[in-house]
């Protein structure tokens, strides 16, 4: 494939581009925008949680009487914010950043391919995502506001909800379609377009985690897409897939007959949404693996074990979904089955975490910002994983189910876990993408406050959860006597959330100013071994990534190899040729 970037118009080069790098950057910028938006929504909620039914100063009055009359948030608006925060963070923020941006940009480069296998499909995937995101946001303009039945959209609540839910479902159909297009592309690219010598076991861990993730998306999303359409039918066409007969709402009998099942939705939803958890975490593990190998200057410990563990994790993630449903009236046998699979799936996670921790031993550790975020990922993901244990045991879940403990648990996985890994990835690959370095000073101003604030937000949630405080309460539990002792924590969490927002300012400045003012970076800025660093920095846009299609001679992380005077051996470095030249 030739590089015809110079002859392209602005639109085909930067907007409707077929180049995986441009599409990756488009995914990256869009999803970062959505992350900020999703975070802003939760800040509004956190004001209400800390100061229930008090007017939000300064900006409160701009939200209008339908959401915040006199600056005081209505419960309807709170529920919309909650549903949209979850949806935006997961489907428009973290997944498109981890899979769409990092996957798109890095997978072809790391396997030595000129582009993705299907460039047009790739472009379609991004624009599908873009339209999905736009439709999601339209929800806020609907009468009754955006979807307000939680990101889980459980019927019957979601079916009797205001029209924002219809828009949400249409948005979801676009987002799911986008993911399906993307995942097929990733799988075919990895299977078909690996450079000569790039065997499966020589692929960098990031490529492996992207491959497993793509399979999860490909197999888990179709049931949700079907379920979403069925829910749409229940809302619009009067079908009753999820609606039992004889429901009474505000004294009126609902016209649904035919005996649908509210549990059916939960099964279909969680059949996607549990693998989705691994879609959130696997790309993060991939990024952290790359950054740790590079900055310890040694190979990953137990790399092959990690690969097998990721594949096993992928398989297992399809048979744990009902652990979200222990309290739906399950018998002993079914609950025992799902508890057992849930305990089993913790093993590969522990193997991956242990391997990453052991990889540090004997390293020569460089503490740049990318590495700090990756290092912090380890204990934060550790807390997230450990707090999953009591939730996985059905007996303990009787008390902890749907409390703030659950919120604390999965935010530890996703926020200081996955999002830290994504930050790490941005700091690590920024020199490759732009040809310039990010500021280390601003990076550290971003890292340390973020780490502290994250913990001040999410740890108190575990305490509130143990006290029994339910999630999704508009007043944060102020109605309840039993929450009295832990209510003050709401103020701690909200203040920390506001500070966390402030802590992102150095990052935003860093991303933009470094693009123009950052110090120039060399092609292999971090002295790394994987193939993306064999391409020139800020590789020319358009098809064709490498001046010479690389050939691969060895495993991905050959740092400080024995029997060599080199500090690192890139995957494509031909020792024999090198020797001949010396001779």
């Amino acid at each position, binding site marked *: 494939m030739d590089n015809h970037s110079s002859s392209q118009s602005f639109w085909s080069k930067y907007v409707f581009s077929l180049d995986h790098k441009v599409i990756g950057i488009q995914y990256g910028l869009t999803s970062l925008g959505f992350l900020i938006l999703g975070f802003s929504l939760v800040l509004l909620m956190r004001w209400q949680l800390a100061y229930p039914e008090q007017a939000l100063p300064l900006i409160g009055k701009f939200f209008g009487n339908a959401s915040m009359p006199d600056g005081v948030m209505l419960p309807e608006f709170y529920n919309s914010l909650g549903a949209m925060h979850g949806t935006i963070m997961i489907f428009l923020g973290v997944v498109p950043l981890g899979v769409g941006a990092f996957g798109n940009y890095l997978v072809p480069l790391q396997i030595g391919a000129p582009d993705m296998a299907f460039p047009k499909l790739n472009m379609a995937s991004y624009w599908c995502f873009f339209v999905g995101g736009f439709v999601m946001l339209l929800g806020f303009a609907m009468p009754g506001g955006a979807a307000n039945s939680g990101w889980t959209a459980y019927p019957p609540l979601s079916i009797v909800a205001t029209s924002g839910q219809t828009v949400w479902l249409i948005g979801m159909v676009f987002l799911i379609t986008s993911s399906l297009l993307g995942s097929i592309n990733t799988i075919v690219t990895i299977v078909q377009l690996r450079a000569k010598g790039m065997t499966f076991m020589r692929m960098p861990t990031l490529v492996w985690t992207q491959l497993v993730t793509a399979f999860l998306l490909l197999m888990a999303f179709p049931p949700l897409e079907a379920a979403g359409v069925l829910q749409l039918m229940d809302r619009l066409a009067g079908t009753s897939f999820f609606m039992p007969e004889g429901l009474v709402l505000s004294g009126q009998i609902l016209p649904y007959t035919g005996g649908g099942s509210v549990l059916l939705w939960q099964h279909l939803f969680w059949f996607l949404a549990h693998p989705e958890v691994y879609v959130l975490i696997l790309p993060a593990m991939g990024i952290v693996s790359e950054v740790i190998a590079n900055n310890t200057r040694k190979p990953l410990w137990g790399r092959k074990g990690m690969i097998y563990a990721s594949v096993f994790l992928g398989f297992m993630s399809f048979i744990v979904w009902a652990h979200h449903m222990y*309290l739906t009236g399950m018998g002993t046998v079914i609950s025992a089955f799902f508890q057992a699979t849930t305990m089993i799936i913790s093993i590969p996670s522990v193997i991956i975490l242990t391997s990453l921790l052991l990889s540090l031993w004997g390293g020569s550790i460089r503490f740049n910002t990318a590495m700090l975020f990756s290092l912090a990922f380890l204990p934060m993901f550790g807390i997230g994983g450990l707090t999953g244990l009591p939730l996985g045991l059905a007996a303990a879940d009787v008390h902890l*189910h749907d409390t703030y403990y659950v919120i604390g648990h999965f935010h530890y996985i996703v926020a200081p876990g996955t999002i830290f890994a994504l930050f790490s990835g941005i700091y690590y690959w920024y020199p490759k993408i732009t040809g310039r370095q990010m500021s280390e000073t601003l990076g550290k101003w971003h890292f340390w406050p973020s780490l502290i604030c994250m913990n001040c937000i999410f740890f108190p949630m575990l305490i509130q959860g143990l006290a029994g405080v339910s999630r999704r309460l508009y007043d944060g539990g102020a109605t309840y006597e039993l929450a009295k002792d832990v209510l003050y924590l709401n103020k701690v969490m909200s203040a920390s959330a506001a500070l966390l927002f402030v802590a992102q300012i150095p990052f935003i400045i860093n991303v933009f100013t470094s693009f123009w003012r950052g110090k120039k970076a060399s092609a292999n800025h971090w002295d790394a071994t994987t193939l993306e660093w064999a391409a020139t920095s800020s590789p020319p846009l358009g098809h064709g990534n490498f001046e010479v299609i690389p050939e691969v001679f060895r495993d991905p992380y050959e740092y400080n190899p024995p029997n060599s005077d080199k500090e690192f051996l890139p995957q494509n470095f031909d020792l024999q040729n090198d020797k001949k030249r010396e001779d």
Partner: protein
Amino acid sequence: MLPIQASTQSAAIDHIIVLVHWLMLIMFVGWISYFLYTIFRFRSSKNTKASYHGVKTHFSSYLEIGLVLIEVFLLVGLSIPFWQNVVTAFPPAEKALTVRVVAQQFAWNVHYPGKDGRFGKTNSSFVNSQTNPIGLDPQDPYGKDDILTVNQLNVPINKPVIVRLSSLDVIHCFGIPLMRLKQDVLPGMKIPTWFEATKLGTFEIMCAQLCGVGHYRMRGFVNVMKPEDFKSWMTEQEELLLEEAEADDSEDDFWS
């Protein structure tokens, strides 16, 4: 950090929660000490050349096997038996008090069978939010003596209570945190759960599943009474019903 225990099953649940948290604490302290020591010891300024092989022992494998064994114990030794012996092991109906709780946006309707010990038939076509919130069939003789309360679940102490849960509208979740009891209430399904109160007093019922704008204030109360107090409350309610029925009858006489 766990609240007081007000039911027979609280101790068993807390026992599991506490044990798991000890396990978590030990693992976390182990990891974090290793982690901090390692990143300090192997910082590049001190250790300029990395070791290609790194860790050579199989210590971590033993740790992983140990963790597996502990998880097996928690699962097979504690959690599964709890489900079998408590959650799904209902006390015999003759030894228990059986009540129905019908959830709706945003209240808990409590339905006692009354003197005859049998619940009147209900059907959503009879529902009237003012006069007949759960849709009792006016033709059913068993329903005549049924006692209804809203958000007040009165129960005797030290006696198992079987709660038959159902919902009129959307999904709710019947939670009594201080009794370590929680059960989803799914419309279209009748799901029973049970508990036995061990402390006198009032305990909050908290909805745990998002059920709409009033989810946050869907609060009810379990009033745990001495058996004799419960009995006299019950008798009082029965007499009230009788008086009402008589009043209704005399009204009918008047108009006819």
